[in-house]
């Protein structure tokens, strides 16, 4: 397993796609978490930002302070960050079928489960690095805002930081595993990415909208992956998408504990399904 992990870390680490997706997420996080909020804050005349029902300037400033960094870390993950790591998982696994590299790896020595385990381990390492980098970036950005606005700097507490990092890993891990499963199922990157994005960005929202009209459908939408991811972010204090300054995808549909359990269940189910398919299926490409 260690040999497979080393091999996969080498090839994923040198893959431009890994860096492009990671860099895109960091840029989006910085832009939507701090740059746009700070520009809104600076450009507001009165005590509120935007329309009359908009957030107060004070709330906006507090959201950009270092103490709020764990929340900023997770608020964009249920939808946009999740979509990006889903793409990473889908292309990391699906491309191997298109290039014929799974065939090469499976005939190189390790068991299929071991080889796939190496890929999952390497993706996990990348995910930990990405979440850590995002948190560091958020801390740096929030410290800059605090310094520029002459605010006292209060760093996030240890528990809040651990909760934020843990939640971020769980949300991203679940979407990454969903991407891996799609890449495995479709044996290619394009369809996997397309299906994954349509599901995470469109279908779940549509279903939630329909559930408002059809009560019984709510039982289904309450346990969807995106609902669980959004609920965990909401439970940590991220503003829901109904809030004037809220983030799309964030919700409080289920409790934080239920969201953690659901995300964990999805994560395990996606990984087990991917490993089982990989181990059992004929490799014909």
């Amino acid at each position, binding site marked *: 397993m260690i*040999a497979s992990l080393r091999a996969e870390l080498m090839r994923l680490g040198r*893959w431009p796609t890994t860096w492009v997706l990671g860099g895109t997420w960091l840029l989006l996080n910085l832009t939507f978490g701090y740059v746009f909020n700070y520009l809104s804050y600076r450009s507001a005349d009165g005590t509120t930002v935007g329309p009359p029902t908009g957030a107060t300037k004070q709330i906006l400033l507090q959201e950009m302070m270092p103490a709020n960094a764990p929340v900023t870390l997770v608020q964009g993950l249920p939808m946009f960050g999740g979509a990006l790591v889903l793409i990473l998982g889908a292309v990391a696994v699906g491309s191997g079928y298109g290039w014929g*590299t799974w065939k090469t790896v499976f005939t190189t020595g390790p068991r299929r489960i071991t080889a796939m385990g190496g890929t999952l381990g390497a993706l996990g390492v990348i995910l930990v690095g990405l979440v850590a980098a995002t948190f560091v970036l958020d801390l740096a950005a929030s410290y800059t805002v605090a310094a520029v606005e002459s605010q006292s700097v209060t760093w996030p507490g240890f528990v809040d930081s651990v909760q934020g990092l843990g939640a971020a890993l769980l949300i991203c891990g679940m979407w990454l595993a969903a991407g891996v499963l799609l890449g495995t199922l479709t044996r290619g990157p394009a369809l996997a990415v397309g299906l994954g994005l349509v599901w995470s960005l469109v279908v779940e929202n549509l279903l939630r909208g329909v559930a408002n009209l059809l009560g019984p459908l709510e039982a289904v939408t309450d346990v969807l992956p995106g609902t669980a991811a959004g609920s965990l972010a909401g439970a940590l204090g991220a503003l829901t998408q109904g809030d004037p300054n809220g983030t799309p995808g964030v919700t409080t549909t289920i409790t934080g504990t239920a969201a953690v359990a659901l995300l964990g269940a999805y994560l395990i189910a996606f990984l087990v399904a991917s490993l089982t398919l990989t181990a059992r299926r004929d490799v014909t490409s």
Partner: protein
Amino acid sequence: MDATIVSTQRLTKTYGPRSAVAAVDLTVRRGEVYGFLGPNGAGKTTTLRMLLGLVRPSSGRATVHGLPPGDPVAVARTGSLVEGPGFYPYLSGRENLRVLARYRGLGDREVDRVLERVDLTERGGDRFKTYSLGMKQRLGVAAALLGQPDLLILDEPTNGLDPAGMADMRDLIRTLADHGQTVLLSSHLLGEVQQICDRVGVISAGRLLTESTVAELRGEASLLIRADPLPAARSVAERIVGSAQVSTVDGMLRLATGGERAAELTRALVLADVAVLEVRPEERTLEDAFFEMTHEGATS
């Protein structure tokens, strides 16, 4: 040590109602170059994929190194190139091999060795996606050589190579066999197989039609003699090689004997006042044997 390195018993793969491979029994002996011949779609690649554990048989069994196909120990002792090389396009040839070497727990020195072996050292730093078809094929062979496996399974290894590259590949395969490595190669280039293989298996429509040495497959050589008068020539020839060995074909005598008796026969014919117009050996090529066999296989 077991003399058999690959063995299959009634190995079968079906896709729905279609049999891709049907009850194939083949045996590859240690140290030989075994040619697996067959037209496109005959079942060669599917058979090789089953031997590597990539595809599960529908029925029958196979052993590689005495182990089930896909067993990590067997796979680690087998180098393979099946249906074209599969590499990461964004990595260089050398980096691709380093990734595979890491999977096998091998160092970079082994990567340099195999790159040298296939004459890719100079271009090893270029990205795989910039390689020509022939270079990709050579890199695939280099990957198969990583760790000096006992057995090489090569599917059309000369695909995409220019004539010089094909000759180099033939030399490489022969050299590997001379150093004790077993090579199982599939090919539809019959001349190539005739040159480098010790034994061959011929597959058509999923069925193994025969398994024998190249010489056995080509059959006995014969000698053609054009002479005048023919009846006198025939009686001389029958006296020397036996009447059962002589036949008349298109106004010529065909003798079931090798070219080594040509001088003796010519001398006897001349002494018998027979005008000898032409004496030439007739050898059936592997191609002749192959087409004869696959045509029979297709029509039977």
